[in-house]
Each structure stands twice: as C-alpha cells, then as structure tokens.
C-alpha cells in the first residue's frame, strides 16, 4: 500500500511538474484505435494532428498513442497523457467514451474531446462527430445503380448507432434507385483487423455481392475486391485512391483538420467550452472522394446532385416516408429525422433483413 501511495504521489508530482514546465507550448494529445498507417480512420485523424502542428508550429506540442484497445486500457493511456501535462486530449474512437469521461472527472483542468460519442458528464468534455450518413446516401445511390446481382455486401464494425445509421442511409438510397436491392450485413466486431476484414469481403463476394461497403478502418476489403475482379468498393474514412478507378469508385473522406485547429486555438485563447459538434458535407467535415470513370456519367451526375442538396441543406438523408424494420411508421412523408433519434439509432429501416446484435 505504502509503495502504491508513494508512486501515485510521485506520478502526480511529476504531472504537476511537467504541467508547469509545459506552460508555454500547448500540449495536445491524441488517442488512436489503430495504427496511423491504416490508410483509413486513424490515418485521417493523424492528418488532422499534423495540420494542428503545421498551423501553430512551436506554440503547440502534440503526442499520440496508436493501437489503444477500447476499454480499460484506454483509461490508462488517457490518464497517462493527462499526467504528462496535456492541455487538450482527443480520444478518437467510440469505445473510449466511458474511459474519457472517467479520466475527465479526475482532471478538471484538462480539456477532453471525444469523437463519435454522446456522453459529456463533466464540463471539460466535448463530443464531436461527422455526419457520415450523408456520405452513405451518396454511396447508396451509386451502389444501387451499379449492382448487377442486386446484392450489396456491408462490413459493419460494431453495432453502434453511427454504424447502423450508415447502413440505413445507404440502404434507403440504394433502394430508391433500385427496388430489387438486397443488403447482406456482416459484423466483424473489430475496427481494424485486415485479415478478418478481407475474409468478410471474400465471404460477401462468394455469396453474390458485387458491391462492398465497409465501416472498418483498413484497406483490406479493397484489396480483396480487387483480387475478386468485378466488384466495386468505396473508400472509408480516407480516400483510398490507390484502389481506384476500380474497385474503389468513390469514398467518404473525414476531414478533422479544421475542427482540431479551431479547438486547439480555443484552448490557447482560453475560450474553450464543452460543446457537441456534428457537421456534415456542408461544413466540410465529410468529403466525397472523386467519383471514378468506372461509374457512368448519369449516375455520377445524380450522385453529385444528392451531394449538393445535402450540402446546402435542401435535402435530408432521412426524409420520410420511412418505416422501421418491423413495419411501424417512423417518419411521415416529408418529415425529416431529428438529431436525437439519429444519435441513438438502434433499428433498421423497413426492408433490411436480419437483427442488429444487441
């Protein structure tokens, strides 16, 4: 007991000392769920970090930890960062939600930013996310037109609202342009495991899918689709342009840089407050990658029209009439979904087979 006490106080003293020393440059920490070279989700967050460095130069010092498992291990890593004097910490995966809030409660002077979550238990926690489902609407439109087998494979990561929203949005828009379309959904239960993601893609292709949508972080499904031949895919989180013009025909690109720069600036100026940010195509947080020549011109034009209407707000990706999977009414004709329902979305829309793992 004595030893642990001693170590704790030593650690606290060390933390205080470094905090005092680090008063000059603002120290910003990033916690990543995969490696920065994953070519997808974590890669884009790290691009955001680099943009912060480029913007502020010597006035900022950034640290990051890769491959942090969601759960208790994350709490240890975040605590460590706070002890090392970080002023602002971005935790960039859904599963860091509780660890982030737990650590935030212990370090009231440190600001925390949690990506894709919804818990802000103390006023030093902000949440931020992007409206990826707007990008999924564009993807669904292209996928519905392009599929010949009418089977679209979808690799889900974890059954959380963000992923379910993406599935629903893609399905609604694929169905709209192709009433015969069918979704086959496989849950990988991982954000990053190239071998497993490739297996999932292969299984879906073997079962007849000729379009693969993924909500996992690596480029492995792209490689599997390329090896299989006549299959198209979409870049996820990052452009994944190296797999274009086919299989990758377009992509959803996350652009975190402006947000990271703005929040770091707010900490420097002392104007940081707890906020909940959820921006889409319009604000530039979600980008649509170049639609390749493998897509016919009229499909491309239709996809870009949807993108434009989502961007200027004239169209909402969830516009009624939409029923839930069990047939009960969700949105009446012309009605659009409210953010609260979207944030906690835990149901499929009518027409999708299968259950969401609970």
């Amino acid at each position, binding site marked *: 007991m004595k030893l642990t006490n001693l170590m704790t106080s030593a650690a606290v003293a060390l933390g205080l000392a470094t905090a005092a020393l680090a008063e000059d440059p603002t120290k910003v920490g990033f916690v990543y769920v*995969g*490696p*920065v*070279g*994953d*070519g997808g989700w974590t890669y884009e967050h790290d691009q955001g970090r680099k943009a912060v460095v480029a913007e502020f130069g010597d006035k900022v010092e950034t640290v990051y930890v890769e*491959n942090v498992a969601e759960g208790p291990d994350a709490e240890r890593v975040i605590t460590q960062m706070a002890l090392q004097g970080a002023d602002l910490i971005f935790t960039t995966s859904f599963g860091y939600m509780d660890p982030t809030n737990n650590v935030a409660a212990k370090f009231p002077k440190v600001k925390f930013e949690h990506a894709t979550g919804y818990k802000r238990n103390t006023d030093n926690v902000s949440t931020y996310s992007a409206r990826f489902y707007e990008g999924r609407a564009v993807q669904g439109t292209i996928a519905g037109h392009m599929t010949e087998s009418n089977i679209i*494979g979808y690799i889900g990561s974890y*059954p959380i609202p963000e992923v379910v929203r993406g599935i629903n949005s893609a399905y609604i828009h694929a169905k709209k342009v192709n009433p015969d379309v069918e979704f*086959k*959904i*496989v*849950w990988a*239960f*991982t954000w*990053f*495991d*190239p*071998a*497993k993601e*490739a*297996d*999932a893609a*292969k*299984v*879906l292709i*073997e*079962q*007849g899918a000729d379009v693969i949508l993924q909500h996992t972080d*690596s*480029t*492995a499904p*792209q*490689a*599997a689709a*390329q*090896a299989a031949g006549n299959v198209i895919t979409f870049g996820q989180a990052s452009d*994944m342009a*190296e*797999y274009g013009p086919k299989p990758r025909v377009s992509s959803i690109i996350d652009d975190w840089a402006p947000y990271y720069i703005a929040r770091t600036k707010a900490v420097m100026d002392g104007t940081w407050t707890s906020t909940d940010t959820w921006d889409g195509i319009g604000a530039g947080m979600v980008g649509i990658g170049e639609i390749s020549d493998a897509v016919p011109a009229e499909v491309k034009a239709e996809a870009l029209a949807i993108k434009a209407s989502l961007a200027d707000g004239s169209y909402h990706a969830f516009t009624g009439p939409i029923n839930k999977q069990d047939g009960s009414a969700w949105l009446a004709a012309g009605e659009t979904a409210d953010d609260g329902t979207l944030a906690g979305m835990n149901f499929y829309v009518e027409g999708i*087979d*299968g*259950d969401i*793992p*609970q």
Partner: protein
Amino acid sequence: MDLSAINPALLIASLMVAATPLLFAAIGELVVEKSGVLNLGVEGMMIVGAVAGFATAVETGSPLLGFVAAAGAGATLSVLFAILTQYAQANQVASGLSLTLFGLGMSALLGQSYVGVKPPQMQKIDLPVLSDLPVVGPILFGHDPMLYLAIALIAAVWAVIKFSRIGLVLRAVGENHDAAHALGYKVVRIRILAILFGGACAGLGGAYISLIRVPQWTEGMTAGIRWIALALVVFASWKPWRVLLGAYLFGGVTVVQLNLQAAGVAIPVEYLAMSPYLITILVLVILSADKSSAPAALGRNFHAAR
C-alpha cells in the same frame, strides 16, 4: 435466412487459406517449445516476415522470392531472441514480448513506402482436369503452393520428431537439458537452431497474410493472430497433427461464422464472433485429456556451468 447462398466447396477452400498463416506460425513455435524454449515473439517475427516478404515480392516481382526473404527476415529477428536468451541468459518471456514490440515497430518503419501498393500475385497450382473437378477441385487442387508447403511442413515435423534421431535429441534437450548436456549434446546450439526454424516459419506465416490472404501491406496486420498461434501449441499438447486440426478448426469457424452472418442466420452475432476461439480451445482441451504434458524444461534457461 438463406443457407443455399453458402457454397460448401468455396467455404472449405477459403477456410484452408484462412488457417495457413496460423499453421506456419504454430508449427514453428511447436519445434521451439519442444526444444524447451518459450518464444512469445511470434507476432514480431510474423509481422517482420510480412513486410519483408511484401517488399521483396514488390521489388523483384516474384512472390516466391518474397517468401524466401520472409523466412530469412523471421529467422534474423529470432537471432536476437537467441542471443538474449541463450547467451545473455535473459528471461524468455520478457525477451519474447519485447521481440513482438520491436517487430511491430520495425515493420511499421520498413513498410511506410509500401502502404497501398499491390503485390504480384502468386500463381495457383493449376492441374489440368483435377483443378476443374467439381467440389474436390477447388478444395484439394486449386490452391497456391505455400498452402501445400504448410501441410507438408506439419507432416515433416511430425515424422522428424517421432521417428528420427534429430527429433529424439530435440526432445531430450527440451525435457531435461542437464541430462542432454551430460550426454554430450550441445544444448545451446540445438536450441538456437530450433529458434531459427521457428523464426523462419513465423516469417512465412506473416508473408502468407501480406502476399496471399489479404493481399496488401498494412501496419499491424497480424492483429488477429496475436495469441492464437501460441495458444494452439499448448492446447494441441505439442502434437503436430493436432496443430493442423486446431488451425483448420479455428480458420473454419472464423469463415463459417462470417458466412452464416451474411446468409442471415438467426444466431446472435456475439456468439458467432466468439465461436472460433471457444470451439477450437474446447475441442483441443477435450483431445488433450490423455495427459501429454509440456516439455519439462520449457522456459528454463540453460547454462553449462550451473
């Protein structure tokens, strides 16, 4: 639910591919452990093999050379482990774990310029008539040569350990290194050779992932096989054929559960997702009821003067 969407022949063919990296890594580790050394650095050697094999295959255009380089790279990294544990008498567990961390870091560094590059494809063995047979064709005759090499390796290790003098010496060193030393066997030399063999096998397993199973290079791409290769050796009670069984079972359930999900079977996905680990370990535990135990000197360092 639509089970007819699942093609059993394709399923079995893809489970063999999914199991092969595991097979390479586990059979290498089995030989290492038979010699009384516990090398927890399997993942480090695999990932270094994955990147070395990938880079070589891309630069030379030959996947076969890639595999040779992968085996070399895995063995080279294992030299580090051999020096630490056999000469410096370092703790095997700690050395093995640090080997994994070192391998992950080094491979990320080496692989930076290979992210997003497409490797040359390895030709599948194409036997006229045989490969075109329905069902049997894709299962038995439609694979790449490395998959057959993995199975041959299992058979070879089994035969050597069971029937040859070399196997007897290896086992003697692993069971009681003092007695083996007293009989005049070079304990350290034999162990180093076993470690090198294990490293080469792990390297091949890694390259199989980056060149054939996925195929691409991504940092940390061996993530899914992290501990299962080690667990497999233990649960297979150090018997080569059980390693094969365990690896195919694990690969099989992994592929089957994805197939069932895609076909919309009404089993909760959580159960499906954990099933590969559960079923493999369960079956092997039942099989290992015959009380064959670990090599007696496993994990213990040997020094002639002690």
